[in-house]
């Protein structure tokens, strides 16, 4: 074993973890690490233009690829700039490891230049975090950080690296295993409980699956599809679960909740057996909790015990990995062909009732001479290749994408669900594009949100990441304006984007391409052209300024109480 510096050991540790990409921004406290990174040709480093962008990129990389995203920034302001990105990943259970520089250990607590107690600041929004005070602990801390980030219910982990730790020397050996007595997630569901829930499901007459992001995180969408099809169970997904079950499947109900489909919300409300899989009963899903699935026995499969009975009382919980539990549930069907046939026959009227709801109130919008944002999304869906990765910003653009883009595969739709972070989509697209250079990556953006991390235009140009940003430019903070229209007597308090840049010129100023579309008949051509251009493109779709997202359940109302178009 030879002596190396903490910074070199850090690079060695990343290699051992199989890290091939890192996103970040340098500064005084991480000079040693950046010096070492210059020699690490096997790790592609992408310099963002703001640390928030770097964290979202690491997050987008993780969501698209299923691998742990890595981010490296300096101390103080560099570290505090990561907080929104970390909180975003935390809310959606995304595995990332964020490395922050820190002032030398002897200065910690002295209000030193660029000192921030980032471990203290991020304690409530990380799965766990570390301050490495001794270079001998570096390997163990990094090993544990990656392990904790990707196992159990995944999440962000932060590792704070004081400058003197990184430039001192160490006999380095990366640990082969972690030794964490107090952390052992449950993967295998309780067999007896799985048998019990299968008993309940087979006897149900109005069952529905409510699937969330946990299905994607557990790579369980194939098992979910097999299970749903075998039992002919209708499936609704959360925003985070979009793509975990193919949208085009006849059993698919689309999204549920505040902007969910009529069929999904009616199905859940009238169900006698709600099977929640990797979902957490968020208030945007449940609406008024007391009236959520009021007639249903509630089955909940989740790897995180704290999710169970947190918001809604669960009748039959199973703590475990969604994929393993679904496999267990499928195995329980062996030798029960009779019960299965009986159940499928008995639930036929229920499926017909659901089909009637779908027919009565499909998702829809009115065409006009002005471009409708929903139309743009339908056309993107029609034109973009099947393996396209779509990210969104937050607001109406996000809800319309969830409603009108027919996601068929998991990890094709990256969006900030839990925190609802405007400015997420563009840098997340950078991360996804870095993971999959050959695939089409599209950020469906709002004119407000895109301005929150627009500096990343320089990043896509520098690294020639051909991300396509489709701006649904309604001239408003549209989602907030919609609430003002519906619940505040159309008093549009500070929601007009009265001044926005000329997005075409802006893209060009950065060295990217810009297109503008003002007529519905030009939408398709513009999308095709954007996809044809080899580099990054901004397309500014000037859309109907006052189009609203429907259906909509007013906040706090039961979800069958929908405002329809």
């Amino acid at each position, binding site marked *: 074993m030879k002596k190396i510096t903490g910074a070199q050991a850090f690079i060695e540790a990343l290699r051992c973890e199989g890290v091939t990409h890192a996103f970040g921004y340098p500064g005084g406290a991480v000079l040693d690490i950046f010096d070492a990174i210059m020699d690490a040709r096997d790790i592609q480093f992408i310099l963002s233009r703001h640390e928030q962008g770097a964290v979202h990129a690491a997050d987008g990389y993780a969501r698209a690829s299923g691998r742990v995203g890595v981010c490296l920034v300096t101390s103080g302001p560099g570290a505090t700039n990561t907080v929104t990105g970390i909180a975003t990943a935390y809310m959606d259970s995304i595995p990332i490891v964020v490395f922050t520089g820190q002032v030398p250990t002897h200065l910690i607590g002295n209000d030193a230049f660029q000192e921030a107690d980032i*471990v*203290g600041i991020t*304690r*409530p929004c990380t*799965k*766990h975090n570390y*301050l490495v005070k001794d270079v001998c602990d570096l390997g163990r801390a990094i090993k544990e950080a990656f392990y*904790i980030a990707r196992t159990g219910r995944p999440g962000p982990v932060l590792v704070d690296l004081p400058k003197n730790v990184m430039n001192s020397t160490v006999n380095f050996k990366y640990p082969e295993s972690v030794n*964490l*007595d*107090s*952390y052992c997630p449950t993967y295998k569901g309780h067999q007896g409980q799985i048998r019990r829930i299968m008993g309940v499901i087979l006897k149900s007459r109005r069952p529905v699956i409510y699937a969330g992001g946990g299905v994607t995180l557990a790579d369980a969408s194939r098992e979910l599809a097999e299970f749903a099809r075998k039992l002919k169970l209708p499936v609704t997904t959360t925003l985070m679960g979009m793509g975990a079950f193919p949208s085009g499947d006849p059993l698919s109900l689309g999204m549920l909740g505040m902007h969910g489909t009529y069929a999904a919300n009616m199905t859940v409300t009238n169900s006698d057996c709600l099977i929640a899989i990797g979902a957490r009963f968020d208030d945007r899903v449940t609406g008024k909790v007391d009236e959520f699935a009021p007639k249903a026995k509630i089955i909940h499969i989740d790897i*995180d*015990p*704290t999710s*169970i*009975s*947190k918001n809604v*009382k669960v009748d039959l919980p199973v703590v475990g990995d969604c994929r393993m539990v679904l496999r267990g549930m499928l195995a329980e069907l062996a030798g029960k062909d009779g019960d299965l046939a009986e159940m499928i026959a008995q639930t036929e009227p229920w499926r017909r009732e659901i089909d009637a709801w779908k027919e009565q109130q499909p998702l829809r919008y009115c065409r006009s001479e002005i471009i409708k944002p929903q139309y743009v999304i339908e056309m993107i869906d029609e034109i973009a290749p099947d393996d396209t990765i779509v990210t969104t910003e937050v607001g109406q653009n996000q809800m319309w994408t969830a409603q009108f883009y027919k996601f068929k595969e998991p990890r094709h739709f990256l969006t900030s669900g839990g925190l609802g972070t405007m400015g997420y989509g563009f840098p997340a697209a950078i991360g996804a594009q870095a993971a999959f250079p050959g695939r089409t990556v599209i950020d469906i953006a709002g004119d407000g949100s895109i301005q929150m991390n627009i500096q990343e235009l320089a990043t896509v140009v520098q690294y020639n990441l051909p991300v396509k940003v489709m701006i649904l430019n309604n001239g408003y903070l549209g989602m907030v304006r919609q609430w003002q229209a519906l619940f505040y007597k159309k008093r549009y308090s500070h929601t007009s984007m009265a001044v926005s840049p000329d997005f075409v010129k802006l893209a060009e100023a950065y060295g990217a391409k810009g297109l503008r579309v003002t007529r519905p008949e030009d939408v398709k051509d513009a999308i095709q052209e954007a996809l044809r251009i080899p580099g990054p493109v901004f397309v500014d779709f000037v859309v109907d300024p006052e189009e609203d997202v429907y259906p909509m359940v007013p906040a706090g109302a039961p979800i069958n109480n929908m405002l329809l178009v």
Partner: protein
Amino acid sequence: MRHAISVYVDNQAGVLSRVVGLFSGRGFNIESLSVAPTLDPAKSLMVITTTGNEQVLEQIKKQLNKLINVIKVVDCADREYVEREMILVKIKAEKETRAEVLRIADIFRAKVIDVSPKSYTLSLTGDKRKLEGFVEILTPIGIIDFVRTGTVVMAREMQGRRKLP
């Protein structure tokens, strides 16, 4: 409902703040808290008394278990247990009341741990109710200073027997 929970944690910097932050961040209540290393110096034991309905307590226990540095969570309500806390009271003790203070101390089996011409400092251990009774009796005499620890608890070895007073 008042509830005591024993939480075994890694004896490391920042762990207390993780636990306390969890309570404040999620709106759980901490009534009292006592922390000290266990016989194994790598671990500490925190005894937290809290209030909340069954669902809240369930969440508290699960959320505590989810913290990486939490090794074990033991809910005292699952077993019979003994509990103690301690108070120190500095009480006015001038001519007229000196003897009476000592008499009260004797009745409660409190100890005199410091003496001055005008005061006594008493220490008393016991469960919450005993301590509250003691303080109530002393208050009219004139409490000068008062400090109270958090609760510590231990499961009874022989469950289902009468408790010693």
